[in-house]
């Protein structure tokens, strides 16, 4: 074996092992993050965390019940804004759209998806907070709702398009009109996928912090109704993590674990549902 061949072979082995090392590092970062968060969070999560209000500075203990409820309320408003727009626009793109206008809508949707979340926050501040003159649950929900639209459109459109053609043709051949076909055949056939996509969408905005900082703001107490500043898990993690108090750090870990657990469970479950669905559609 000539020197050159030996050299090429060793380069081959070294470089290929390096790519393997890269993959290993990337995956172990995830495992490290999960492990570290679980380790620090598990010792801090307790019953009080889910049922008590935050204690005043200096008192240890307390929980984040208001932030958990707050996140839920914000996500509810966000879903009420983002989902109808996303689903209806997706029906338009998948079933009715012409060429040019659909292209423009798709392009704009992608553009909106790339807008940094902090900029969405400025937008919500300008159109909701300024007219109302104060921070509110509505403003935070509005910001998150805008963030939900792009993913809702893209995933719903994808699942509508994946419905086999013969279902559509069968309904039309029986004399059903187009919208009746859509409402009674296509959407039900795609429903599982659409719902999974929307769930993933909720998981994505559940962790958003930046757009909430100056729309929903935060609150150390319960926030009744929809017109007052409201606490949310991500903003609480931020405030507690940059605070100088050990007990707050402990609670930030607990909140981090709860939030990440929620997001990852939704992600894992929906991937499995989608994979099963894809296999089913392939037949």
């Amino acid at each position: 074996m000539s020197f050159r061949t030996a050299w090429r072979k060793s380069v081959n082995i070294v470089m290929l092992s390096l790519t393997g090392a890269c993959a290993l590092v990337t995956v172990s970062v995830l495992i490290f993050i999960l492990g570290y968060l679980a380790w620090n969070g598990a010792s801090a999560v307790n019953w009080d965390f889910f049922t008590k209000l935050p204690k005043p500075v200096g008192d240890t203990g307390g929980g984040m019940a208001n932030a958990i409820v707050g996140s839920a309320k914000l996500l509810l408003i966000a879903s009420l804004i983002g989902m109808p727009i996303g689903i209806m626009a997706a029906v338009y793109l998948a079933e009715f759209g012409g060429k040019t206008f659909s292209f423009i809508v798709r392009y704009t949707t992608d553009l909106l998806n790339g807008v940094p979340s902090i900029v969405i926050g400025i937008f919500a501040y300008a159109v909701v907070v300024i007219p109302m003159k104060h921070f509110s649950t509505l403003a935070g929900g509005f910001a998150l709702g805008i963030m939900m639209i792009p993913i809702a459109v893209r995933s719903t459109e994808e699942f509508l398009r994946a419905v086999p053609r013969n279902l559509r043709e069968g309904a039309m051949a029986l004399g059903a009109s187009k919208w009746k076909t859509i409402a009674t055949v296509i959407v039900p056939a795609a429903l599982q996928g659409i719902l999974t996509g929307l769930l993933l969408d909720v998981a994505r905005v559940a962790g958003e912090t930046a757009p909430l900082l100056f729309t929903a703001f935060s609150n150390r107490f319960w926030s009744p109704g929809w017109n007052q500043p409201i606490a949310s898990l991500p903003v609480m993690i931020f405030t507690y993590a940059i605070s100088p108090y050990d007990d707050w750090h402990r609670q930030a870990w607990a909140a981090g674990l709860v939030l990440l657990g929620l997001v990852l469970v939704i992600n894992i479950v929906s991937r499995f549902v989608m994979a099963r669905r894809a296999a089913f559609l392939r037949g």
Partner: protein
Amino acid sequence: MASALSTMDRAAPIRSGPRSFLRRLADGDQIAHLITLVFAASILLITTMLVYQLWIGSTDARHKFGWHFFFTTTWDPVAGDFGALPFIYGTLVTSALALLIAVPLGLGAAIFLAELAPRSISDGLAFLIDLLAAVPSVIYGLLGIFIVVPMMRLYIAPFLKATLGFLPLFQGPCYGVGMLTAGIVLAVMVVPFIVSVSREVLLSVPADQREAAMGLGATRWEATWKVVVPFARTGIFGSVFLALARALGETMAVTMVIGNDPKIAASLFAPGYSIAAVIANEFSEATGNLYVHSLVELGLVLFLLTFILNGVARLLIVATEQKGMSQA
């Protein structure tokens, strides 16, 4: 007149029958079409309003400072003097650092997953890496504060000072928080994007490209590096642009570890500030029109940067995938 009457006569009996029923249904279609169209158009409206709000929301700052806004370094809310350079610098430097770390790492991992690993292992690992992309940024910030910051102060900075300390980049005191710390945290956040897009692009390279190279006697690595990767080059660039757009706009994790000090320092250990971070920290407390308008103008800059990068990224990725399809 006569002809009009005769057409009406002919049309009338049919209309009263099944056709009117069909017509009503057709009208239902039109209504459904119209309603969905309104929702689709509302996305255009929202996006237009967003741009409009950023534009009018920054009027005062644009008029007062003009282009100087981008080249001056003072950020003095009390005196009402605002310059964006330290923030632009911080955003660009942290993003560049992130790419410097994330591109080799992500590309290496993508090559392993697409070219070497068996499909089932590749899919499993890609799934885990996709999960990394789902981790909320505030959690990266949390881990950044409590893991990367102390590690930086205790191990990474002393090591870099000992080895590369002759460079001005690695001199001066290290407080833990700073540009390099933000760059490292950002790198971890954008790696999943590079891996998952590059892997898709590499997988779309037709198999005969690999086979031809190996048939000519190339080793596996040579076939990958000299044939497959160049073939997928545009798509890989696309993934890098995507990662860059994400790094530029990233707010929480950067805010938590960059140090939040609007200065331009030669050292990467020094605290800095980024566009997104200054908006996050100061927007809710900003008083006076000029202050708010300056922050909104920073938002406008961020919007335009990510807009351009996302557009380019999408074009590049689509171009490569079509190339793969046309030659497959």
